[in-house]
């Protein structure tokens, strides 16, 4: 039987492909490695890594302002590196973009420091009024691709950055 992570990655790939983005930007992440690999080898979607999430938000915002569609995939720690760019640029200038965020911390996390940012992150995003949808074990995996593509449309329709955060490790809510 396929592991939760494998199925989740397939769903995330399907969700992103359904959006038909022009560009896929990413920061390396082991849990969604198959997703990044898939788009690195994609024939139609231009894929590239970003040096740091703040730089990535700026580049993605520029792509969006220039009339093309970006999707960015980062770890949740990267929100810490980019929250100013997300709020005072993407949000303030009404630049639509979808930011996919993998959760760190919680059960299965081996890093003994990252939880100190990952656990309060949902509250930080709520306080900053950055609209975030959460995918975890409570949402059936077959619905994840639908949620991702709907989030991209929601970003366009509401003229702002939208975050979809997913806990790909399964298990209890963080």
């Amino acid at each position, binding site marked *: 039987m396929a592991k939760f992570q494998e199925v989740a990655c397939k769903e995330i790939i399907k969700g992103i492909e359904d959006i038909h983005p022009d560009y896929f930007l990413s920061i390396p992440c082991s849990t969604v490695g198959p997703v990044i690999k898939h788009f690195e080898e994609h024939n139609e979607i231009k894929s590239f890594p970003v*040096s740091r999430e703040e*730089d*990535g938000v*700026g580049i993605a915002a*520029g*792509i969006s302002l220039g*009339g093309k569609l970006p999707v960015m995939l980062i770890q949740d720690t990267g929100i810490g590196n980019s929250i100013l760019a997300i709020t005072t*640029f993407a949000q303030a200038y*009404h630049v639509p973009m979808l930011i996919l965020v993998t959760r760190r911390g919680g059960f299965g996390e081996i890093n003994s420091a990252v939880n100190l940012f990952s656990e309060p992150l949902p509250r930080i995003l709520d306080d900053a009024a950055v609209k975030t949808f959460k995918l975890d074990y409570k949402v059936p995996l077959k619905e994840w691709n639908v949620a991702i593509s709907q989030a991209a449309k929601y970003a366009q329709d509401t003229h702002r950055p939208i975050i979809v955060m997913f806990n790909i490790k399964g298990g209890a809510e963080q």
Partner: protein
Amino acid sequence: MMSRMDALKVLYTYTENIPVISSCGNTSREWASLGRRDNHLYMVDTMGLTPSVAIGVSLAIEDSGFKKCIGIEGDGGVLMNPNSLASASYLQPEKWLLIVFDNGCFGSTGGQTSFASKIDIAGVARGFQLETLAVDNLEDFEKAVVTGLEAEGPFVIHAKINQENHKATFINDDPAVLAYKFSSFIEGEK
């Protein structure tokens, strides 16, 4: 040594139909005081992000008729986000032209010393394998703008300026309106 305003006046004559993104603080204020244009996006915050945004716009307009997308940043801003130089080097956005006005200080906040007082930004850009011209007077700056606009790949102009600030009105527009005008211009010209 030229002032930023002197250089901006020269640049203004070359950018009637070119997307330009200007960094926050005095740079955007002085730039806007020359005359607002829809193809000019004025940053009101997020210091250091301008080169990154310009990379994104440059990628998006690669197949359009625009010659370049210009980002205007200060020395403090570019050293706050040198990652953008790494990205430009990696991505090679052919329409990206970055102009760094270097007064060796944080001019908008009272002239506090910046790293650029001891770091050669042109050398940093070249270290990232970006084609770069360094200038310190108006005549050479204009030549560099002409060269940069015709360059086939990403290009950096490192322009040394004095610490003079011109008094210009604050930009308190709704950023959403600024972005809408900019995007609409690009969409209309594509």
